[in-house]
């Protein structure tokens, strides 16, 4: 089985307009963080200039989530130094997560439909709205022709995009994959339905216990995943390696600990020493179930909840944390403070586990480990 590594990262969000500034923000003390007020239910991206990656001509045809995604994917590609000539584009894929679609573009067009008729609508509505629009635009922008997919599975979509992209590389269906997720919350319609859902769900029962209210944030994060041997051959800088991916389902509360245990077992085999586990943070019962599962396996694990710092980023959730963790692992080790201001988990970690859940019972887990400097 081929080993998969991360050779590029890119991101944009309310905390910063690239991975460096997001990590600089999250490395600083809590009082220095420019993050929006924790009391605000919505954290938008402000003052972002996309012109480096998206032309004015293209901007008229696409939604904001695609703009954010093209920028984050472009940053990851630049960071990887994959182009020009670093790869056969038939062997380069695109795996994307998106839940909310392109309502910033579509909402005014639907108003137009109801007030002035179908002939007044933009011809780009169909190609701007759907979640796979970002995959298509990345393909057009970079001439990518390899194995590609889009996931639209709420808060686990981004982590699934990474995990299944890694599987595609491991199975020799691609040599590298641009993978990540993007969400835009600027449409009034999306704000209403997500906030209504958020408050309706606060305290509502789920497979993982009562749901918790968290601020919502928009943005995008992308990784360049690559076959280890391919990366070494072209002299790429490797951030870290993927140690495993597991995607399972707990049909009821009784099976939650068992399924989390199975997932953890699948992603931690190759990590030595203590691991930092980034919880999903949206459900009351997650932390205790995960502690039990880790204890059953005898795993030395520190726990953090990144939601108070990063917000609920829907499909981007998990990918943003993976981008920040990859950057840290490239330089050595990860601290809990990067993901949680008041982290109880002390020390440094040579491996990171990211866990994401869906209300209905999905459990998606990704493991990241540093590259041994001796290897």
């Amino acid at each position, binding site marked *: 089985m081929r080993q998969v590594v991360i050779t590029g990262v890119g991101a944009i969000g309310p905390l910063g307009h690239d991975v460096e500034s997001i990590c600089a923000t999250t490395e600083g003390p809590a009082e220095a963080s420019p993050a929006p007020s924790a009391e605000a239910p919505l954290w938008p991206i402000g003052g972002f200039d996309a012109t480096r990656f998206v*032309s*004015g*001509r293209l901007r*008229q*045809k696409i939604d904001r989530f695609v703009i954010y995604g093209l920028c984050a994917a472009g940053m990851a590609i630049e960071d990887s130094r994959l182009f020009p000539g670093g790869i056969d584009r038939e062997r380069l894929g695109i795996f994307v997560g998106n839940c909310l679609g392109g309502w910033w573009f579509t909402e005014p067009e639907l108003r137009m439909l109801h007030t002035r008729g179908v*002939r*007044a*609508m*933009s*011809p*780009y509505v169909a190609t701007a709205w759907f979640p796979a629009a970002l995959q298509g635009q990345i393909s057009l922008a970079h001439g990518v022709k390899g194995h590609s997919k889009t996931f639209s599975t709420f808060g686990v979509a981004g982590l699934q995009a990474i995990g299944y992209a890694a599987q595609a590389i491991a199975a020799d269906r691609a040599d590298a994959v641009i993978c990540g997720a993007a969400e835009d919350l600027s449409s009034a319609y999306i704000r209403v339905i997500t906030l209504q859902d958020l408050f309706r769900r606060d305290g509502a029962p789920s497979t993982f216990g009562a749901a918790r209210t968290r601020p919502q944030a928009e943005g995008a994060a992308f990784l360049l995943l690559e076959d280890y041997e391919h990366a070494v051959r072209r002299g790429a800088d490797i951030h870290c390696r993927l140690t495993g991916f597991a995607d399972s389902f707990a049909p009821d509360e009784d099976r939650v600990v068992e399924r989390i245990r199975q997932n953890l077992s699948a992603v931690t085999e190759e990590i030595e020493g203590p691991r930092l586990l980034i919880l999903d943070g949206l459900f009351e019962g997650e932390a205790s179930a995960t502690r039990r599962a880790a204890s059953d396996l005898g795993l030395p694990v520190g726990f953090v909840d990144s939601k108070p710092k990063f917000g609920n980023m829907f499909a981007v959730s998990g990918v943003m944390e993976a981008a920040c963790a990859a950057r840290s692992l490239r330089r050595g080790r990860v601290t809990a403070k990067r993901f949680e201001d008041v982290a109880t988990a002390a020390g440094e970690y040579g491996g990171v586990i990211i866990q994401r859940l869906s209300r209905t019972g999905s459990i998606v887990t990704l493991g990241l480990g540093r590259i041994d400097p001796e290897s």
Partner: protein
Amino acid sequence: MRDQVNDVIRKILSESIDIPEDEIRMDADLAAEYGMDSTELTALEKEIESLFSISASRSRRSASWVTGSDIVDFVLAETAHWAPPDEV
């Protein structure tokens, strides 16, 4: 009137293809020179309909829009029956 319509169409074309107004050649083939595809022309058609309150559907156009000047001619033909404001 022609100069005014020409300026408006030049401005719309400039915004549509993201090229400065003074670099737009109104006699150039829009597809060959600026890479405009049929969907971009459809978007342009809708903007012209909105701005001039005319129907610019393909079935309405007797000649195809190859150049910017073709669009100017079409708009002028469609608005020729308009009475000047002081005659209304």
